[in-house]
Protein backbone atom coordinates (compact mmCIF):
# COMPACT_ATOMS: atom_id res chain seq x y z
CA UNK A 1 0.00 0.00 0.00
CA UNK A 2 1.15 3.54 -0.67
CA UNK A 3 1.72 6.09 2.10
CA UNK A 4 -1.49 7.86 1.12
CA UNK A 5 -3.49 4.62 1.29
CA UNK A 6 -2.04 3.75 4.70
CA UNK A 7 -2.81 7.23 6.07
CA UNK A 8 -6.37 7.08 4.74
CA UNK A 9 -6.91 3.58 6.14
CA UNK A 10 -5.52 4.63 9.54
CA UNK A 11 -7.82 7.63 9.68
CA UNK A 12 -10.84 5.63 8.61
CA UNK A 13 -10.15 2.89 11.18
CA UNK A 14 -10.42 5.50 13.95
CA UNK A 15 -13.58 7.07 12.50
CA UNK A 16 -15.13 3.60 12.13
CA UNK A 17 -14.01 2.71 15.68
CA UNK A 18 -12.44 -0.46 14.29
CA UNK A 19 -9.63 -1.44 16.66
CA UNK A 20 -8.68 -4.60 14.73
CA UNK A 21 -8.34 -2.63 11.52
CA UNK A 22 -6.34 0.09 13.29
CA UNK A 23 -3.84 -2.48 14.57
CA UNK A 24 -3.68 -4.20 11.18
CA UNK A 25 -2.90 -0.92 9.41
CA UNK A 26 -0.20 -0.09 11.97
CA UNK A 27 1.53 -3.42 11.35
CA UNK A 28 1.32 -2.90 7.62
CA UNK A 29 2.83 0.58 7.96
CA UNK A 30 5.84 -0.88 9.80
CA UNK A 31 6.22 -3.64 7.21
CA UNK A 32 6.23 -1.00 4.48
CA UNK A 33 8.96 0.88 6.37
CA UNK A 34 6.90 4.05 6.76
CA UNK A 35 7.66 6.74 9.34
CA UNK A 36 5.52 5.75 12.35
CA UNK A 37 5.26 9.34 13.63
CA UNK A 38 3.88 10.44 10.28
CA UNK A 39 1.39 7.57 10.27
CA UNK A 40 0.22 8.54 13.74
CA UNK A 41 0.04 12.28 13.18
CA UNK A 42 -1.38 12.33 9.66
CA UNK A 43 -3.41 9.12 9.82
CA UNK A 44 -4.67 8.12 13.26
CA UNK A 45 -4.57 11.64 14.74
CA UNK A 46 -6.47 12.99 11.75
CA UNK A 47 -9.16 10.42 12.55
CA UNK A 48 -9.25 11.44 16.20
CA UNK A 49 -9.50 15.11 15.22
CA UNK A 50 -12.46 14.33 12.98
CA UNK A 51 -14.13 12.35 15.76
CA UNK A 52 -13.50 15.32 18.08
CA UNK A 53 -15.12 17.69 15.59
CA UNK A 54 -18.15 15.42 15.24
CA UNK A 55 -18.36 15.21 19.03
CA UNK A 56 -18.35 19.00 19.30
CA UNK A 57 -21.31 19.10 16.90
CA UNK A 58 -23.32 16.46 18.78
CA UNK A 59 -22.97 13.92 15.98
CA UNK A 60 -20.72 11.51 17.87
CA UNK A 61 -21.11 10.72 21.54
CA UNK A 62 -18.77 10.11 24.43
CA UNK A 63 -18.80 6.28 24.36
CA UNK A 64 -17.85 6.31 20.67
CA UNK A 65 -15.13 8.87 21.31
CA UNK A 66 -13.72 6.74 24.13
CA UNK A 67 -13.73 3.65 21.92
CA UNK A 68 -12.05 5.47 19.06
CA UNK A 69 -9.34 6.61 21.49
CA UNK A 70 -8.95 2.96 22.54
CA UNK A 71 -8.49 1.97 18.89
CA UNK A 72 -5.85 4.64 18.53
CA UNK A 73 -4.14 3.47 21.71
CA UNK A 74 -3.95 -0.07 20.31
CA UNK A 75 -2.42 1.20 17.06
CA UNK A 76 0.00 3.42 18.98
CA UNK A 77 1.16 0.39 20.97
CA UNK A 78 2.12 -1.35 17.73
CA UNK A 79 4.08 1.66 16.50
CA UNK A 80 5.51 2.57 19.90
CA UNK A 81 8.87 0.82 19.70
CA UNK A 82 9.66 2.41 16.36
CA UNK A 83 8.57 5.83 17.62
CA UNK A 84 10.67 5.56 20.76
CA UNK A 85 13.74 4.94 18.70
CA UNK A 86 13.04 7.51 16.05
CA UNK A 87 11.35 10.57 17.43
CA UNK A 88 10.59 10.69 21.12
CA UNK A 89 14.15 11.28 22.19
CA UNK A 90 14.67 14.49 20.25
CA UNK A 91 11.50 16.35 21.21
CA UNK A 92 11.18 16.62 24.99
CA UNK A 93 8.97 16.37 28.04
CA UNK A 94 5.81 18.16 29.02
CA UNK A 95 3.82 18.43 32.24
CA UNK A 96 0.04 18.54 31.83
CA UNK A 97 -2.56 19.14 34.55
CA UNK A 98 -6.08 20.39 35.16
CA UNK A 99 -5.69 23.17 37.73
CA UNK A 100 -6.69 23.00 41.37
CA UNK A 101 -10.43 23.13 42.04
CA UNK A 102 -11.27 21.83 38.59
CA UNK A 103 -12.17 18.20 38.02
CA UNK A 104 -12.69 18.27 34.26
CA UNK A 105 -10.23 16.22 32.29
CA UNK A 106 -11.85 14.83 29.16
CA UNK A 107 -10.45 17.59 26.95
CA UNK A 108 -7.07 17.32 28.59
CA UNK A 109 -6.96 13.57 27.97
CA UNK A 110 -7.75 14.06 24.28
CA UNK A 111 -5.04 16.69 23.99
CA UNK A 112 -2.50 14.43 25.70
CA UNK A 113 -3.36 11.50 23.41
CA UNK A 114 -2.66 13.68 20.37
CA UNK A 115 0.47 15.38 21.72
CA UNK A 116 2.01 12.02 22.61
CA UNK A 117 1.70 10.89 19.03
CA UNK A 118 4.21 13.60 18.09
CA UNK A 119 6.96 12.09 20.19
CA UNK A 120 6.46 14.38 23.19
CA UNK A 121 6.67 12.63 26.54
CA UNK A 122 3.66 13.90 28.49
CA UNK A 123 3.53 13.55 32.26
CA UNK A 124 -0.18 13.68 33.09
CA UNK A 125 -0.72 14.91 36.65
CA UNK A 126 -4.48 14.45 36.38
CA UNK A 127 -7.06 16.91 37.63
CA UNK A 128 -7.45 19.23 40.63
CA UNK A 129 -3.67 19.73 40.81
CA UNK A 130 -2.18 22.50 43.02
CA UNK A 131 0.36 24.89 41.50
CA UNK A 132 3.12 23.68 43.84
CA UNK A 133 2.67 20.11 42.64
CA UNK A 134 2.81 21.19 38.98
CA UNK A 135 6.10 23.03 39.50
CA UNK A 136 7.51 20.21 41.58
CA UNK A 137 6.75 17.72 38.79
CA UNK A 138 8.24 20.00 36.14
CA UNK A 139 11.46 20.26 38.12
CA UNK A 140 11.58 16.55 38.86
CA UNK A 141 11.03 15.44 35.25
CA UNK A 142 13.06 18.14 33.57
CA UNK A 143 10.09 19.26 31.48
CA UNK A 144 10.34 22.02 28.91
CA UNK A 145 6.62 22.81 28.62
CA UNK A 146 3.90 23.12 31.27
CA UNK A 147 0.32 22.83 30.03
CA UNK A 148 -2.68 23.63 32.21
CA UNK A 149 -6.37 23.20 31.55
CA UNK A 150 -9.27 25.02 33.26
CA UNK A 151 -12.93 24.63 32.41
CA UNK A 152 -14.34 27.14 34.87
CA UNK A 153 -14.06 30.90 35.24
CA UNK A 154 -13.57 30.23 38.95
CA UNK A 155 -10.53 28.00 38.42
CA UNK A 156 -8.84 29.99 35.63
CA UNK A 157 -7.04 32.19 38.20
CA UNK A 158 -4.91 29.17 39.07
CA UNK A 159 -3.33 29.43 35.62
CA UNK A 160 -2.41 33.00 36.51
CA UNK A 161 -1.14 31.81 39.88
CA UNK A 162 1.19 29.35 38.14
CA UNK A 163 2.77 32.20 36.16
CA UNK A 164 3.14 34.28 39.32
CA UNK A 165 4.71 31.50 41.41
CA UNK A 166 7.11 30.59 38.58
CA UNK A 167 8.23 34.23 38.46
CA UNK A 168 8.57 34.45 42.25
CA UNK A 169 10.79 31.38 42.30
CA UNK A 170 12.92 32.60 39.41
CA UNK A 171 11.80 29.68 37.25
CA UNK A 172 9.69 31.48 34.68
CA UNK A 173 12.31 31.52 31.94
CA UNK A 174 13.06 27.86 32.45
CA UNK A 175 9.66 26.72 31.12
CA UNK A 176 7.24 27.44 28.31
CA UNK A 177 3.62 27.55 29.44
CA UNK A 178 0.44 26.85 27.49
CA UNK A 179 -3.16 27.24 28.66
CA UNK A 180 -6.44 25.81 27.42
CA UNK A 181 -10.02 25.04 28.43
CA UNK A 182 -13.45 26.40 27.47
CA UNK A 183 -13.30 29.85 29.14
CA UNK A 184 -9.66 30.49 28.15
CA UNK A 185 -8.75 32.70 25.22
CA UNK A 186 -5.63 34.14 23.63
CA UNK A 187 -6.44 37.37 25.47
CA UNK A 188 -6.39 35.47 28.77
CA UNK A 189 -3.02 33.90 27.89
CA UNK A 190 -1.63 37.36 27.01
CA UNK A 191 -3.02 38.87 30.19
CA UNK A 192 -1.45 36.34 32.56
CA UNK A 193 1.79 36.05 30.58
CA UNK A 194 1.46 32.48 29.34
CA UNK A 195 3.55 31.61 26.29
CA UNK A 196 0.71 30.05 24.31
CA UNK A 197 -2.99 29.30 24.16
CA UNK A 198 -4.71 26.44 22.34
CA UNK A 199 -8.40 26.45 21.50
CA UNK A 200 -8.65 22.69 21.04
CA UNK A 201 -6.60 19.52 21.10
CA UNK A 202 -5.53 19.82 17.47
CA UNK A 203 -4.19 23.33 17.96
CA UNK A 204 -2.59 22.14 21.20
CA UNK A 205 -0.39 19.74 19.26
CA UNK A 206 0.83 22.49 16.92
CA UNK A 207 1.47 24.96 19.73
CA UNK A 208 3.29 22.47 21.95
CA UNK A 209 5.57 21.49 19.08
CA UNK A 210 6.33 25.17 18.47
CA UNK A 211 7.13 25.67 22.14
CA UNK A 212 9.38 22.62 22.14
CA UNK A 213 11.37 24.07 19.25
CA UNK A 214 11.60 27.60 20.67
Amino acid sequence: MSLESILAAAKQAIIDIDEDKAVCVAKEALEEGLNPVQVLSEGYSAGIREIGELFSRGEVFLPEMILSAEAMKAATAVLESAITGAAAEKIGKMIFATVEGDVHDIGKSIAIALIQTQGVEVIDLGRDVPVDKIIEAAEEHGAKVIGTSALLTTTMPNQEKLEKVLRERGLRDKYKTIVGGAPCTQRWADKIGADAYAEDAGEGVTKVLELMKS
Partner: protein
Amino acid sequence: MSEFFTRMGDGSGVYMTAEEIREDILKGVKDAADRGKIPELTQEEMDYLYKIITMPGNIVGVERGREVVSTSDSGSCKMTYHANIAMERSMAVLVSEKVLGADSVDIGNMDYSYKAVKQIIHNETPVMELAQLNAVMPVLYGSMPNLGLYTKPDGPVENWSELLPLAKIDEARAAQEEAVEHAVRDIVFVAGEMYAAGADGINLDTCGASGDADFLAGLLATEKIKEKYPDLGVEFGAAGEFVLGMHGKIEYDGAKIAGLYPHKQVKLAEKAGANIFGAVVNTNTNMSFPWNIARTVTFVKACTAAAEIPVHVNVGMGVGGIPMSEIPPIDVVTRADKALIEIGKADGL
Protein backbone atom coordinates in the same frame (compact mmCIF):
# COMPACT_ATOMS: atom_id res chain seq x y z
CA MET B 1 -13.54 54.00 8.55
CA SER B 2 -16.04 54.11 11.42
CA GLU B 3 -15.96 51.40 14.03
CA PHE B 4 -18.53 50.19 16.55
CA PHE B 5 -17.92 49.11 20.10
CA THR B 6 -18.99 45.57 20.88
CA ARG B 7 -17.57 42.64 22.78
CA MET B 8 -15.95 39.26 22.44
CA GLY B 9 -17.48 36.14 23.95
CA ASP B 10 -15.34 36.53 27.06
CA GLY B 11 -16.71 40.03 27.69
CA SER B 12 -13.66 42.01 26.60
CA GLY B 13 -14.39 45.16 24.59
CA VAL B 14 -13.55 45.33 20.91
CA TYR B 15 -14.09 47.79 18.05
CA MET B 16 -15.30 46.32 14.77
CA THR B 17 -16.01 47.85 11.39
CA ALA B 18 -19.40 47.52 9.71
CA GLU B 19 -17.95 44.97 7.31
CA GLU B 20 -16.47 42.88 10.12
CA ILE B 21 -19.77 42.88 12.01
CA ARG B 22 -21.75 41.86 8.93
CA GLU B 23 -19.22 39.15 8.15
CA ASP B 24 -19.43 37.72 11.68
CA ILE B 25 -23.23 37.81 11.60
CA LEU B 26 -23.24 35.79 8.40
CA LYS B 27 -20.69 33.28 9.75
CA GLY B 28 -22.65 32.85 12.99
CA VAL B 29 -25.89 32.26 11.09
CA LYS B 30 -24.25 29.73 8.80
CA ASP B 31 -22.61 27.89 11.71
CA ALA B 32 -25.97 27.43 13.47
CA ALA B 33 -27.73 26.41 10.27
CA ASP B 34 -25.01 23.89 9.47
CA ARG B 35 -24.86 22.33 12.94
CA GLY B 36 -28.60 22.30 13.62
CA LYS B 37 -29.61 21.58 10.01
CA ILE B 38 -32.04 24.47 10.29
CA PRO B 39 -32.86 27.45 8.03
CA GLU B 40 -30.57 30.46 7.95
CA LEU B 41 -31.87 33.91 8.93
CA THR B 42 -33.13 35.96 5.98
CA GLN B 43 -31.08 38.88 4.67
CA GLU B 44 -33.69 41.24 6.11
CA GLU B 45 -33.30 39.63 9.55
CA MET B 46 -29.51 39.83 9.35
CA ASP B 47 -29.77 43.51 8.38
CA TYR B 48 -32.00 44.15 11.39
CA LEU B 49 -29.59 42.26 13.64
CA TYR B 50 -26.79 44.47 12.37
CA LYS B 51 -28.92 47.49 13.20
CA ILE B 52 -29.49 46.23 16.75
CA ILE B 53 -25.79 45.58 17.29
CA THR B 54 -24.76 49.01 16.04
CA MET B 55 -27.57 51.08 17.61
CA PRO B 56 -26.26 54.10 19.49
CA GLY B 57 -26.66 54.09 23.25
CA ASN B 58 -25.35 51.85 25.95
CA ILE B 59 -28.62 49.97 26.27
CA VAL B 60 -31.45 49.24 23.86
CA GLY B 61 -35.03 48.01 24.35
CA VAL B 62 -37.75 46.22 22.44
CA GLU B 63 -40.41 48.14 20.57
CA ARG B 64 -43.49 49.07 22.61
CA GLY B 65 -45.94 46.18 22.69
CA ARG B 66 -43.27 43.54 22.13
CA GLU B 67 -42.32 43.10 25.79
CA VAL B 68 -42.10 39.52 27.01
CA VAL B 69 -42.32 37.89 30.41
CA SER B 70 -39.36 36.62 32.39
CA THR B 71 -38.78 33.51 34.42
CA SER B 72 -35.62 32.69 36.34
CA ASP B 73 -33.23 30.01 37.45
CA SER B 74 -32.60 30.11 41.22
CA GLY B 75 -33.73 33.73 41.10
CA SER B 76 -34.38 34.07 44.80
CA CYS B 77 -30.76 33.26 45.66
CA LYS B 78 -29.12 35.70 43.30
CA MET B 79 -29.41 38.85 45.36
CA THR B 80 -27.49 37.06 48.05
CA TYR B 81 -24.71 35.51 46.06
CA HIS B 82 -24.38 37.98 43.19
CA ALA B 83 -25.01 41.25 45.01
CA ASN B 84 -23.78 40.13 48.45
CA ILE B 85 -27.01 41.28 50.07
CA ALA B 86 -27.93 38.76 52.73
CA MET B 87 -31.63 38.31 52.23
CA GLU B 88 -34.10 35.62 53.19
CA ARG B 89 -35.40 33.97 50.03
CA SER B 90 -39.10 34.75 50.42
CA MET B 91 -38.13 38.41 50.87
CA ALA B 92 -35.98 38.19 47.73
CA VAL B 93 -39.08 36.98 45.90
CA LEU B 94 -40.95 40.11 46.96
CA VAL B 95 -38.06 42.41 46.02
CA SER B 96 -37.92 40.71 42.62
CA GLU B 97 -41.62 41.32 42.11
CA LYS B 98 -42.22 44.71 43.68
CA VAL B 99 -38.88 46.45 43.07
CA LEU B 100 -37.38 44.80 40.01
CA GLY B 101 -40.65 44.07 38.21
CA ALA B 102 -40.03 40.36 37.68
CA ASP B 103 -42.88 38.38 36.15
CA SER B 104 -42.01 35.23 38.07
CA VAL B 105 -39.18 33.87 40.17
CA ASP B 106 -38.21 30.45 41.34
CA ILE B 107 -37.05 29.64 44.82
CA GLY B 108 -34.00 27.43 44.91
CA ASN B 109 -31.62 26.11 47.51
CA MET B 110 -27.88 26.81 47.43
CA ASP B 111 -27.25 23.11 46.70
CA TYR B 112 -29.67 23.43 43.78
CA SER B 113 -30.14 19.72 43.11
CA TYR B 114 -33.29 17.70 43.74
CA LYS B 115 -31.30 15.00 45.51
CA ALA B 116 -29.93 17.51 48.03
CA VAL B 117 -33.28 19.28 48.45
CA LYS B 118 -35.14 16.05 49.20
CA GLN B 119 -33.37 15.81 52.54
CA ILE B 120 -34.14 19.38 53.64
CA ILE B 121 -37.61 19.61 52.18
CA HIS B 122 -39.05 20.54 55.59
CA ASN B 123 -36.91 23.70 55.47
CA GLU B 124 -37.83 24.52 51.90
CA THR B 125 -41.61 24.27 52.00
CA PRO B 126 -42.10 27.04 54.62
CA VAL B 127 -40.12 29.43 52.38
CA MET B 128 -42.47 28.63 49.52
CA GLU B 129 -45.55 29.00 51.73
CA LEU B 130 -44.43 32.42 52.95
CA ALA B 131 -43.62 33.61 49.44
CA GLN B 132 -47.00 32.42 48.16
CA LEU B 133 -48.78 34.34 50.92
CA ASN B 134 -47.21 37.63 49.89
CA ALA B 135 -46.41 37.49 46.17
CA VAL B 136 -48.87 38.06 43.36
CA MET B 137 -46.71 36.71 40.54
CA PRO B 138 -46.21 32.97 39.95
CA VAL B 139 -43.54 31.52 42.22
CA LEU B 140 -41.87 28.29 41.14
CA TYR B 141 -39.46 25.96 42.88
CA GLY B 142 -36.29 25.18 40.96
CA SER B 143 -33.39 22.74 41.03
CA MET B 144 -31.32 20.57 38.73
CA PRO B 145 -31.75 16.83 38.09
CA ASN B 146 -27.94 16.62 38.46
CA LEU B 147 -27.57 12.95 37.72
CA GLY B 148 -23.91 12.91 38.71
CA LEU B 149 -24.87 13.17 42.38
CA TYR B 150 -26.23 9.64 42.27
CA THR B 151 -22.81 8.10 41.60
CA LYS B 152 -20.48 6.60 44.18
CA PRO B 153 -19.16 7.74 46.62
CA ASP B 154 -21.97 10.32 46.96
CA GLY B 155 -24.73 8.05 45.68
CA PRO B 156 -25.71 4.43 45.10
CA VAL B 157 -24.71 3.79 41.46
CA GLU B 158 -21.35 3.16 39.82
CA ASN B 159 -19.53 6.25 38.56
CA TRP B 160 -19.74 6.39 34.76
CA SER B 161 -17.10 9.11 34.61
CA GLU B 162 -14.67 6.53 35.94
CA LEU B 163 -16.06 3.65 33.89
CA LEU B 164 -15.99 5.42 30.52
CA PRO B 165 -12.23 6.14 30.44
CA LEU B 166 -11.73 2.43 31.17
CA ALA B 167 -13.85 1.68 28.08
CA LYS B 168 -16.44 -0.08 30.26
CA ILE B 169 -19.20 1.30 28.07
CA ASP B 170 -21.97 -1.16 28.95
CA GLU B 171 -21.38 -0.73 32.67
CA ALA B 172 -21.33 3.06 32.29
CA ARG B 173 -24.60 2.99 30.38
CA ALA B 174 -26.25 0.71 32.95
CA ALA B 175 -25.16 3.04 35.77
CA GLN B 176 -26.72 6.04 34.02
CA GLU B 177 -29.98 4.18 33.45
CA GLU B 178 -30.11 3.26 37.14
CA ALA B 179 -29.41 6.86 38.18
CA VAL B 180 -32.38 8.06 36.08
CA GLU B 181 -34.76 6.07 38.28
CA HIS B 182 -33.37 7.65 41.46
CA ALA B 183 -33.47 11.16 40.02
CA VAL B 184 -37.06 10.86 38.76
CA ARG B 185 -38.22 9.63 42.17
CA ASP B 186 -36.52 12.57 43.95
CA ILE B 187 -37.78 15.21 41.50
CA VAL B 188 -41.38 13.98 41.72
CA PHE B 189 -41.17 13.83 45.52
CA VAL B 190 -39.97 17.43 45.78
CA ALA B 191 -42.56 18.57 43.23
CA GLY B 192 -45.32 16.97 45.30
CA GLU B 193 -44.18 18.65 48.50
CA MET B 194 -43.91 22.00 46.75
CA TYR B 195 -47.33 21.56 45.20
CA ALA B 196 -48.71 21.07 48.70
CA ALA B 197 -46.85 24.22 49.79
CA GLY B 198 -48.62 26.22 47.08
CA ALA B 199 -45.96 26.37 44.35
CA ASP B 200 -47.27 27.53 40.98
CA GLY B 201 -44.72 25.50 39.12
CA ILE B 202 -41.56 23.45 39.24
CA ASN B 203 -38.43 24.41 37.34
CA LEU B 204 -36.34 21.52 36.06
CA ASP B 205 -33.23 23.53 35.44
CA THR B 206 -30.27 22.53 33.28
CA CYS B 207 -31.66 19.18 32.10
CA GLY B 208 -28.91 17.30 30.31
CA ALA B 209 -26.05 18.77 32.37
CA SER B 210 -24.86 15.20 32.97
CA GLY B 211 -25.71 14.10 29.45
CA ASP B 212 -28.60 12.42 27.68
CA ALA B 213 -29.62 10.29 30.67
CA ASP B 214 -29.93 13.48 32.72
CA PHE B 215 -32.18 14.95 30.02
CA LEU B 216 -34.29 11.77 30.09
CA ALA B 217 -34.68 12.07 33.87
CA GLY B 218 -36.16 15.53 33.32
CA LEU B 219 -38.58 14.24 30.70
CA LEU B 220 -39.77 11.26 32.75
CA ALA B 221 -40.13 13.42 35.86
CA THR B 222 -42.20 15.91 33.86
CA GLU B 223 -44.51 13.11 32.73
CA LYS B 224 -45.06 11.92 36.29
CA ILE B 225 -45.51 15.41 37.72
CA LYS B 226 -48.18 16.24 35.15
CA GLU B 227 -49.89 12.92 35.80
CA LYS B 228 -49.99 13.39 39.59
CA TYR B 229 -50.35 17.19 39.79
CA PRO B 230 -51.89 18.42 36.53
CA ASP B 231 -52.22 21.99 37.90
CA LEU B 232 -48.52 22.31 38.66
CA GLY B 233 -46.66 24.07 35.87
CA VAL B 234 -43.36 22.63 34.65
CA GLU B 235 -40.57 24.74 33.20
CA PHE B 236 -38.10 22.46 31.42
CA GLY B 237 -34.73 24.13 30.98
CA ALA B 238 -31.99 22.69 28.80
CA ALA B 239 -28.29 22.53 29.70
CA GLY B 240 -26.72 23.17 26.31
CA GLU B 241 -27.40 23.79 22.66
CA PHE B 242 -27.24 20.05 22.01
CA VAL B 243 -27.68 17.18 24.42
CA LEU B 244 -24.33 15.69 25.32
CA GLY B 245 -24.18 11.97 24.54
CA MET B 246 -22.78 10.58 27.76
CA HIS B 247 -24.84 7.41 27.21
CA GLY B 248 -25.42 7.76 23.49
CA LYS B 249 -28.29 5.34 22.98
CA ILE B 250 -31.05 6.64 25.22
CA GLU B 251 -34.32 7.35 23.46
CA TYR B 252 -37.56 9.09 24.35
CA ASP B 253 -40.70 8.73 22.27
CA GLY B 254 -38.67 6.96 19.59
CA ALA B 255 -36.06 9.72 19.29
CA LYS B 256 -32.42 9.39 20.28
CA ILE B 257 -31.85 12.17 22.81
CA ALA B 258 -28.10 12.66 22.38
CA GLY B 259 -27.20 15.31 19.84
CA LEU B 260 -30.61 16.98 19.70
CA TYR B 261 -30.57 20.75 19.15
CA PRO B 262 -33.16 23.17 20.68
CA HIS B 263 -35.78 22.86 17.92
CA LYS B 264 -35.94 19.10 18.58
CA GLN B 265 -35.39 19.27 22.34
CA VAL B 266 -38.53 21.38 22.69
CA LYS B 267 -40.67 18.75 20.99
CA LEU B 268 -39.66 16.14 23.58
CA ALA B 269 -40.35 18.59 26.41
CA GLU B 270 -43.78 19.24 24.90
CA LYS B 271 -44.49 15.53 24.58
CA ALA B 272 -43.59 15.02 28.24
CA GLY B 273 -46.06 17.76 29.23
CA ALA B 274 -43.82 20.75 29.99
CA ASN B 275 -45.47 24.19 30.00
CA ILE B 276 -42.36 26.27 29.25
CA PHE B 277 -39.14 25.28 27.48
CA GLY B 278 -35.87 26.99 28.38
CA ALA B 279 -33.71 27.02 25.25
CA VAL B 280 -29.94 27.26 25.60
CA VAL B 281 -27.33 28.23 23.03
CA ASN B 282 -23.73 28.31 24.22
CA THR B 283 -21.42 31.30 23.85
CA ASN B 284 -18.02 30.83 22.21
CA THR B 285 -15.55 32.94 24.18
CA ASN B 286 -13.21 33.27 21.20
CA MET B 287 -15.82 34.72 18.87
CA SER B 288 -17.40 38.16 18.78
CA PHE B 289 -20.82 39.15 20.10
CA PRO B 290 -22.13 39.60 16.52
CA TRP B 291 -21.10 36.02 15.71
CA ASN B 292 -22.52 34.62 18.96
CA ILE B 293 -25.85 36.45 18.86
CA ALA B 294 -26.39 35.69 15.16
CA ARG B 295 -25.84 32.03 15.89
CA THR B 296 -28.10 32.12 18.94
CA VAL B 297 -30.94 33.89 17.17
CA THR B 298 -30.79 31.37 14.32
CA PHE B 299 -31.15 28.45 16.74
CA VAL B 300 -33.88 30.20 18.74
CA LYS B 301 -35.91 31.18 15.67
CA ALA B 302 -35.97 27.50 14.59
CA CYS B 303 -36.92 26.48 18.12
CA THR B 304 -39.81 28.94 18.49
CA ALA B 305 -41.04 28.01 15.01
CA ALA B 306 -41.20 24.35 15.99
CA ALA B 307 -42.59 24.89 19.50
CA GLU B 308 -46.20 24.77 20.58
CA ILE B 309 -45.33 25.79 24.14
CA PRO B 310 -43.70 29.08 25.19
CA VAL B 311 -39.93 29.23 24.76
CA HIS B 312 -38.00 31.23 27.38
CA VAL B 313 -34.43 31.66 26.19
CA ASN B 314 -31.61 31.41 28.72
CA VAL B 315 -29.75 34.71 28.60
CA GLY B 316 -27.22 34.48 31.40
CA MET B 317 -23.47 34.22 31.68
CA GLY B 318 -22.10 32.16 28.81
CA VAL B 319 -25.42 31.40 27.08
CA GLY B 320 -27.86 33.15 24.78
CA GLY B 321 -25.18 35.31 23.16
CA ILE B 322 -24.15 36.69 26.56
CA PRO B 323 -20.39 36.77 27.22
CA MET B 324 -18.81 34.34 29.64
CA SER B 325 -17.86 36.88 32.28
CA GLU B 326 -18.73 37.25 35.95
CA ILE B 327 -20.79 40.38 35.35
CA PRO B 328 -22.58 40.25 31.98
CA PRO B 329 -22.10 43.66 30.28
CA ILE B 330 -25.41 45.50 30.01
CA ASP B 331 -24.66 46.80 26.48
CA VAL B 332 -24.66 43.36 24.91
CA VAL B 333 -27.23 41.88 27.30
CA THR B 334 -29.92 44.32 26.16
CA ARG B 335 -28.96 43.83 22.50
CA ALA B 336 -29.17 40.06 22.91
CA ASP B 337 -32.60 40.38 24.54
CA LYS B 338 -33.93 42.62 21.77
CA ALA B 339 -32.61 40.36 19.02
CA LEU B 340 -33.95 37.18 20.62
CA ILE B 341 -37.41 38.68 21.10
CA GLU B 342 -37.80 40.60 17.85
CA ILE B 343 -36.00 38.23 15.46
CA GLY B 344 -35.92 34.93 17.35
CA LYS B 345 -39.57 35.37 18.45
CA ALA B 346 -38.77 34.30 22.00
CA ASP B 347 -41.85 34.13 24.21
CA GLY B 348 -39.87 34.96 27.32
CA LEU B 349 -36.42 35.22 28.82
